[in-house]
């Protein structure tokens, strides 16, 4: 059975770069990943490129900067899960024996402010229902009502994120914030304040996916993809851009289904995960997804986080890179950024945010349309 590995990863720092276009953001990330794998574009046999906001042939225009080997290039758009969807296509192409070396690269130069174009119908947008943060706010509010999750727990998630991000050169926000500052910041969608929501920004991230034998010709510093899963919204998932769902819908919801598939594929369980990057597009989502992914019982995500279980040094460190809350979200690049971060964790290269002895790591992304990707890497 083909073992599929990540031979190299690279990121362009996430932030706001008025003087750089998406070509630069993407090609810098791709080149860093190729260099990390001791390769160049000539070694690559196919490429999957993840982007949301450019119109046409964006991956072609990014990779052209690094050479024109004439390989098949396909642009992929799956909202926040675009990058991980590209990784999954690369994984499948290697697994099936179609190729030996595939590049996955994500890049975005996000428009400023609320993201548009998430697939809402006109009437949803014009009447005020077409805004992603509204879904995040409603989901966590229901969680607060049902399980007693508190605003202080939400603030703690943002506090933890910013505290960790101080040490991450790839993060946009690298200043520690107090719980008070977070709670007193402008309210965007109750109960989520400005610092509890991620900011769309600019950046790039890439991974070189290979079969193990081929990777070993270039580098010994690879990690294995144990699972790569993409699942899409079902009726019971009240997720962007759904207007209705069955009452008293029972689990599993989208992220839980994706996680269950990934655990099955990897032959592992949540108890085996040493470090995770999950879709903290807002503080509430980190709490909810930490439960959906099986890291704690449903309803206990808030108290467990507050008790330090998900901080660096805790039982299951989550988003110790600073996560999306601190990195910001260049949509097409975001989930590939997670995969770069957990690759560094498994390689012991995460610096001050290193989770000691990390051997199994998980990345989870989830976005508009109802896409959920779970990727599990092992050392």
């Amino acid at each position, binding site marked *: 059975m083909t073992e599929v590995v990540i031979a190299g990863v690279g990121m362009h720092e996430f932030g706001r770069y008025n003087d750089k276009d998406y070509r630069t953001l993407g090609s810098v990330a791709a080149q860093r990943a190729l260099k990390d794998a001791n390769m160049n574009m000539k070694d690559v046999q196919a490429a999957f490129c993840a982007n949301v906001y450019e119109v046409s042939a964006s991956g072609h225009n990014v990779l052209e900067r690094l050479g024109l080997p004439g390989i098949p290039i396909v642009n992929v758009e799956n909202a926040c899960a675009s990058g991980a969807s590209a990784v999954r296509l690369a994984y499948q192409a290697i697994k099936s024996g179609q190729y030996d070396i595939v590049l996955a690269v994500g890049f975005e130069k996000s428009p400023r402010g609320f993201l548009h174009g998430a697939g809402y119908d006109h009437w949803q947008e*014009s*009447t*005020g229902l077409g805004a992603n943060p509204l879904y995040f706010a409603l989901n966590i509010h229901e969680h607060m*009502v049902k399980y007693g999750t508190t605003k202080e727990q939400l603030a703690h998630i943002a506090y933890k994120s910013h505290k960790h991000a101080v040490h991450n050169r790839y993060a946009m926000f690298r200043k520690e914030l107090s719980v008070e500052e977070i709670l007193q910041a402008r309210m965007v969608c109750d109960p989520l304040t400005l610092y509890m929501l991620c900011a769309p920004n600019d950046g790039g991230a890439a991974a070189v996916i290979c079969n193990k034998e081929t990777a070993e010709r270039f580098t010994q510093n690879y990690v294995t993809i144990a699972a790569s899963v993409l699942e899409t919204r079902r009726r019971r998932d009240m997720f962007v851009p759904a*207007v209705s769902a069955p009452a*008293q819908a029972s689990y599993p919801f989208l992220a839980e289904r994706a996680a269950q598939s990934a655990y099955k594929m990897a032959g592992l369980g949540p108890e085996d995960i040493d470090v995770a990057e999950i879709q903290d597009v807002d503080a509430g989502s980190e709490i909810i997804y930490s439960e959906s992914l099986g890291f704690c019982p449903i309803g206990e995500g808030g108290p467990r986080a507050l008790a330090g279980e998900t901080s660096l040094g805790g039982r299951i460190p989550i988003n110790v890179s600073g996560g999306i809350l601190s990195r910001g979200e260049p949509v097409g690049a975001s989930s590939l950024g997670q995969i770069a971060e957990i690759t560094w964790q498994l390689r012991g290269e995460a610096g001050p945010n290193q989770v000691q002895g990390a051997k199994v790591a998980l990345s989870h992304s989830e976005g508009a349309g109802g896409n959920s990707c779970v990727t599990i890497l092992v050392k």
Partner: protein
Amino acid sequence: MEGLVKVPVKDGLFQFTSPSPMLIVSCCSACGELVFPKQDYCPECCTDTMEEKTISSLGKLVCFTGITSPPPGFKGEVPYTVGIVEFPEGIRILGVMTEKNIDRLIPGMDIEIVMDTAFIEDEKEYLTYKFKPVQ
């Protein structure tokens, strides 16, 4: 807003000319699944087994949020509130609420569906369904 022509923000979302406004849903004749807005195919069965129905105008508020900055494409006025209401027929629906802020909203409270102005454009009053706390 007297004198303005009243039009729905989208055809087929609700009945607004009858005395009590009602949301229009689709109900699957095979599995019973309810969907709002109405659609031709059942999300569960994936077959065109849907029948049009209206649902009760009373439900319970599950959760809510308040919004102060206009999202992209929004033509109404801020601040406003949005909630999810669960109806006795077995469906949860997302909608704008009549309250401008969340101060008086309580999870579990009784909600009725009303017709209200979504926005005014080209001298037309666009109507949408809203969730109103039952006094």
